C-alpha cells in the first residue's frame, strides 16, 4: 500500500517570530525550523501502517522554499522511503487552496491509497488542507483522528475522530485523507542509522509545470501582520494566602466582573 504524507515546515514553537520588512511576511532571520508537530504524528502513523502490513511505501511531500528539504530529510530519517518537494516560485504566498491544489495534483500522479496530514500547521493555523484535498480529489476525509485501522484487504480505513464530548468512528473507503490529532501515537526519534540512510534517499523537486499547473493567485491574502497588542499590566496580589484570596475574589467580582 502506498501512503503519502503531506507535511509543512514551520518555525519552532519556542522561536521568536517578528514581522518582517514586508509587513505581510515574517522576518525569517534566526528562526529554527521544524516539521509541524501534528505532521510528525501523520508520518509516524504512516510508518506504522507500512510496518504492520509488512510492505508498502511511504512518500513525504511538502510545499515551500529550498529550506523545506531539511524537513523532508527529517521525515526520511524517521523512515519515509522518498520525498517530493513542491519547490517553485509559482507557489510563493500560496494560501490553503493553492496548496491543496498543488498537493492534489501530485497525489493524482502518485496515486496513493491513503493520504495523511497533521490536523493543522502551527504557523498559519488554518487546518484546512486535509478537507480541501479531499474535496479536490473527491475522496472522503476524517479530521482530528485519534485512532485508525486499515483493513487487511487495504480497501477501508476505520477512523475515530475527536469531536465535542467524544469520538465518532467511521469507515472510509480508500483512497481517503486523514488528519492526525495529538494522541494518535508517539512519534519516533530518528535513529543514527535512519539519519545516515536518509542522506541516500531521494528528494525530488517538482515544479508547477510538472503538475500541469501555472501560477495561481491566492484566494486569501495577508494584508498585514502585527505583533499582538500587549495585555494591560497585571497586578500581583500581596498578603498571606487568606487575605490575598479574599482580595482576588473581590477584584474578580467588583473590578473585572468576571464571576
Amino acid at each position: 500500500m502506498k501512503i503519502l504524507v503531506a507535511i509543512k515546515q514551520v518555525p519552532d514553537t519556542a522561536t521568536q517570530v517578528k514581522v518582517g520588512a514586508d509587513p505581510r511576511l515574517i522576518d525569517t532571520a534566526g528562526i529554527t525550523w521544524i516539521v509541524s508537530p501534528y505532521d510528525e504524528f501523520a508520518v509516524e502513523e504512516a510508518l506504522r501502517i507500512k510496518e504492520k502490513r509488512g510492505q508498502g511505501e511511504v512518500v513525504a511531500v511538502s510545499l515551500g522554499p529550498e529550506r523545506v528539504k531539511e524537513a523532508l530529510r527529517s521525515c526520511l530519517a524517521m523512515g519515509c522511503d522518498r520525498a517530493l518537494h513542491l519547490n517553485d516560485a509559482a507557489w510563493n504566498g500560496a494560501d490553503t487552496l493553492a496548496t491543496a491544489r498543488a498537493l492534489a495534483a501530485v497525489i493524482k500522479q502518485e496515486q496513493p491509497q491513503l493520504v495523511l496530514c497533521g490536523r493543522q500547521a502551527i504557523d498559519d493555523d488554518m487546518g484546512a488542507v486535509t478537507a480541501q484535498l479531499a474535496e479536490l480529489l473527491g475522496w472522503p476525509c476524517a479530521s482530528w483522528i485519534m485512532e485508525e485501522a486499515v483493513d487487511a484487504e487495504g480497501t477501508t480505513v476505520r477512523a475515530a475522530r475527536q469531536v465535542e464530548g467524544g469520538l465518532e468512528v467511521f469507515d472510509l473507503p480508500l483512497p481517503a485523507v486523514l488528519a492526525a490529532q495529538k494522541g494518535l501515537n508517539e512519534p519516533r526519534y530518528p535513529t543514527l542509522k535512519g539519519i545516515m540512510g536518509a542522506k541516500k534517499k531521494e528528494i525530488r523537486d517538482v515544479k508547477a509545470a510538472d503538475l500541469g499547473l501555472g501560477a495561481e493567485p491566492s484566494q486569501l491574502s495577508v494584508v498585514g501582520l502585527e505583533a499582538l497588542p500587549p495585555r494591560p499590566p497585571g497586578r500581583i496580589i500581596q498578603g498571606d494566602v487568606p487575605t490575598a484570596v479574599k482580595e482576588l475574589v473581590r477584584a474578580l467580582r467588583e473590578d473585572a466582573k468576571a464571576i
Partner: protein
Amino acid sequence: MASAFWCIVEDDRQGAPKKVMAEVLGAASRLGGGPVEAVWLTDKASDAGLKQLGEWGAGKVWLLENAGLAPYRSEVWAGALADLAAQQSPRAIFGAVTSRQRELVARLAARLGVGLAADCVALAMNGDTLVATRPVYAGKLIARVTWAKGPWVATLRPNVFRPAEAQPGKTAAVERPAVSLPPAVMKFVERREEVSTGLPELTEAEIVISGGRGMKGPENYVILEDMGRVIGAAVGASRAAVDAGWRPHRFQIGQTGRTISPKLYLGFGVSGAIQHLAGMRTSKIIVAVNKDAEAPIFKIADYGIVADLFEVVPELTKEFKKLLEK
C-alpha cells in the same frame, strides 16, 4: 437586494442551536454588509430552535432538514451547502470553530474555489471588502487577511465575538429549499462518549481552570474539579501535565491542544510556556497562581498570587462558594 451573510448553524444535535450561534449572528449583523441569514443543516430542527435563531437576528433560516444529514459527514454537508450557495449567491458564509464546521467550511471553500479564513477573532468591512483578523504563529502575531472574491468563507473563534442580544418576538422567515444530498461515502460505525466530568466542555466554557506541572500528580486534579463545580468551570491542563500522563490529551490547552477564549481563566501551577499561552492568551481575564514569582504566566496575568497552589485552591473554592451562595 444586497446578497446575504450566511451563518451556518451549530446545534446540539437535538434540535437546539448552540450559544455560539448568538455570537456568529451578532458578528454578522454588526458588519452591516447585508441581510443576515442562518443555514441549518440537520436531521431534526425544532420550532424552539427556529424561534431562537430569529430572536438572535437571523432574518431568514434556510432549513435543510433531512435524515441523511445525520451523522455529520463533510462530503454530504459540503455538497448540499455548495448547491444552495450556487442558487443563492451569498456574500459571505460564516461558521463557528467546532469539530464539524472547521472541516465543513474548508471543504466548502475548496468546492466554491474561494479563500477561507479560519479561527477569526475580528471581522470588519473595509469599503466593499471584508477583512478578518486571526492569530497566527501560536498567537505571537495577528494577521489581517482578505479575499480575492466572494463568497467570503470564515470560521469564528467561540467566546470572542459579542453575542447578539435576543430580541423577543422577532421571527425568521423559514425557507425549505430543494437541495439534493450527495450520497454518503463514509459509513458511521459508532459514537464513543467521553466519561463525563459533569463540568462544561473546555472550548465552550465561560470559565476555565487549568492545572500545570505544579499539580504534582493526577490525584490532585480533584481539588480543581471541586472548584469547577462551584463556579461552573471546565478543568483543563498544560502540556507538561498531559505529557506526564496526568490528564487525557482532550484536556490539553495550548498550541498542540485546545484553543480557548473564556471570560475567566484561572491557572494553577502553570508556568506559562509559550505553547500554553498560544491556547489561552485571548482569554478576557487571566488569573495565575504559582509559587515561582518568575513564572512567565505572570507577565500576561491580570491578577497573580505568588503562593503554593495547594494552600490557595481550597481557600479560593471556599471564598467562591461564599460569594455565590449570597
